[in-house]
């Protein structure tokens, strides 16, 4: 039934938001990403799938230079955001990360109030001139994170007191509060129950109207449900990249087929 839906999905060519060309990542002596080239579309959901340790999270973290924080990581190749090389010496990673937001595997709200969690990004980037504007941004972001109705009466309570699914949606709200252009999600549902997962997936579907979303997931069903494009990573190689429907129904590479049918991974 699901498969049917995937086949019927129309494929529309969209602008390329992020273009990665021949990206290699090394962790010390380990060659973690091998010569990966991929074009990530704007206003679409791209899923990275693959077995554990295949490099999909590593690659995701290259897209907003989060790997910079790891001393031994070394990156070669070129990643362009709207035609600008993000690894250019003149690029400040802080500015880049405001444009390329990130949601992590484990919900990680700051141990502060719900309001302050969302307001933190706009505050440090100076996105609001006064309290009223900030209030507006917070409300808008929480609405986009599909959590406004649940927390609007307790904005001053700690974000860490929410349930796991709520925390993750709060983190998504926090990420969209800085008005990013790309939203990176590193297995955002792996710590959540099915109901919370469904809520997040619905949210991701919504978010693609506005942002380019890249999601790393272990769940092939999830990739099939939410993404338009899918990239399959295996042992640091990008094995196959294409329309989600195509990858799941008619993979070209035998390794992709083995993985999606559950024979490797």
């Amino acid at each position, binding site marked *: 039934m699901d498969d049917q839906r995937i086949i019927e999905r129309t494929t529309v060519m969209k602008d390329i938001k992020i273009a990665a060309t021949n990206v290699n990542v090394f962790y010390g002596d380990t060659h973690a990403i091998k010569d990966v080239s991929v074009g990530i579309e704007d206003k679409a959901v791209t899923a990275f799938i693959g077995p554990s340790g295949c490099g999909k999270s590593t690659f995701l973290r290259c897209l907003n230079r989060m790997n910079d924080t790891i001393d031994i990581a070394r990156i070669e190749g070129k990643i362009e955001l709207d035609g600008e090389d993000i690894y250019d010496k003149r690029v400040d990673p802080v500015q880049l990360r405001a444009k390329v*937001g990130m949601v992590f595997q484990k919900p990680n709200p700051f141990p502060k109030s719900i309001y302050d969690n969302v307001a933190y990004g706009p505050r440090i980037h100076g996105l609001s001139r006064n309290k009223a504007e900030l209030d507006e941004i917070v409300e808008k972001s929480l609405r986009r994170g599909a959590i406004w109705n649940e927390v609007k009466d307790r904005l001053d309570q700690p974000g860490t007191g929410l349930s796991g699914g709520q925390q993750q949606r709060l983190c998504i709200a926090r990420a969209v509060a800085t008005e990013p252009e790309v939203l990176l999600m590193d297995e955002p549902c792996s710590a959540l129950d099915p109901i919370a997962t469904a809520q997040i997936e619905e949210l991701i579907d919504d978010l693609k109207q506005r942002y380019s979303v890249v999601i790393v997931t272990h769940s092939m069903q999830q990739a099939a449900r939410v993404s338009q494009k899918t990239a399959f990573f295996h042992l640091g190689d990008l094995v196959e990249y294409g329309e989600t429907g195509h990858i799941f129904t008619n993979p070209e590479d035998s390794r992709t087929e083995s993985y999606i049918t559950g024979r490797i991974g």
Partner: protein
Amino acid sequence: MTDATITPVPSPPKTPLTEADPRTKKRNAAEKRFQYYGIAAIAVGLFFLIVLMVSIVRSGLPAFTQAVVSVDFTLTEEQYDEAEAQLFKTAAYQSYFNAVLREELRERGLDVDFDEAAIERILGKTGGTLREFFRANEDQLGQPVSFELSASSRVDGYFKGRVTREALQDSRFLQQSDLDLVDALADAGIVFSALNWNFITGADSGVDNPGGAGIGASVVGSFFMMLVVLFLSLPIGVAASIYLEEFAPQNKFTDLIEVNISNLAAVPSIVFGILGLAVFIQFMHLPQSAPLVGGLVLALMTLPTIIISTRASLKAVPPSIREAALGVGASKMQAVFHHVLPLAMPGILTGTIIGLAQALGETAPLLLIGMVGFVARGYPDGFVAGFTDPNSAMPAQIYTWAARADVSFYEKAWGGIIILLVFLLTMNAIAIILRRRFERRW
């Protein structure tokens, strides 16, 4: 493989769940034993703590009281002029005082005879004190002035049970007959035990005057030192740890620094004292015996403790918080100062208070920079204290007293320990309150 016959595996015998098998019994016994060891260890610790506290309090409390002689004394102007005209002026005052005391006893119907020497043994040379007072306050002449004179340390000891009649041998310090006089004076309410304020607020006296010794000056000295330690080692230590933990690259050089900091924490404190003497006093020519120098030396000693504990508490902050902050576009410094540091604050405060407590109790380095055995300027009418004025510190003062010959100083040493502990507890209480506040905020 060729063996075709399959021997059936005998099913294990059924054991009832309600009965523990030998293995379980053994394990349970081991667990019980371990618990008893723990309880025993705690009990031993508590026992020694109680013994320590009781002995400190028992030996130290007498230091807070002092036997005093209270006499109303009137000196007329004629007597004053007459005394000042004599060759031995204080002797004249002494004889006036004796006459007053004699009169006082007769009025109360007490028939005890005493000579001047007995009074001197009991009260010391009173004449000098009286003369000094009246020379400074000539307007008090002709009016009754109430004097509270501290009794000699042996009489004080007699009041506190340290000196007994049976053990007393007549000497130039105290004789059996003097005790009769003391008893009579005590019955008349002229000699009594009073709270020794001078011990808490005063400065140290010379070796021959245990009654006048106070710890107040060195409390102030210790307080100034702690201020110096706090304001130097906390910011420097925290800044160094943040740099090492969050910003510094991991290489041979930072590894070396790390090892050295850990080693520094184990360097004997007397070495820091020598360092302070060589660098701060001999090279930089800072004043000797000053709390400023003491504070500098102790700050050096406290730094490793603060750095180690700060780094540990920074490490304990989950990396996901840093990632979250970086993920929304905070700079590294913003991530550290807005999120990591506040979360590490309780741990940093704990480390700081441990470091400060260590510094407060440190004696050895102070011996080398001359903060020991010091009588503060301005004694006995108070003392002058500041960051650069010569002073002592509590543990050094206690050390000085413990080394002196007179038994009364021994009692002062114990009393000083009580004050030191009270100071320490106050410091800890402040730290706990601060920590609570930080924990509540986050």
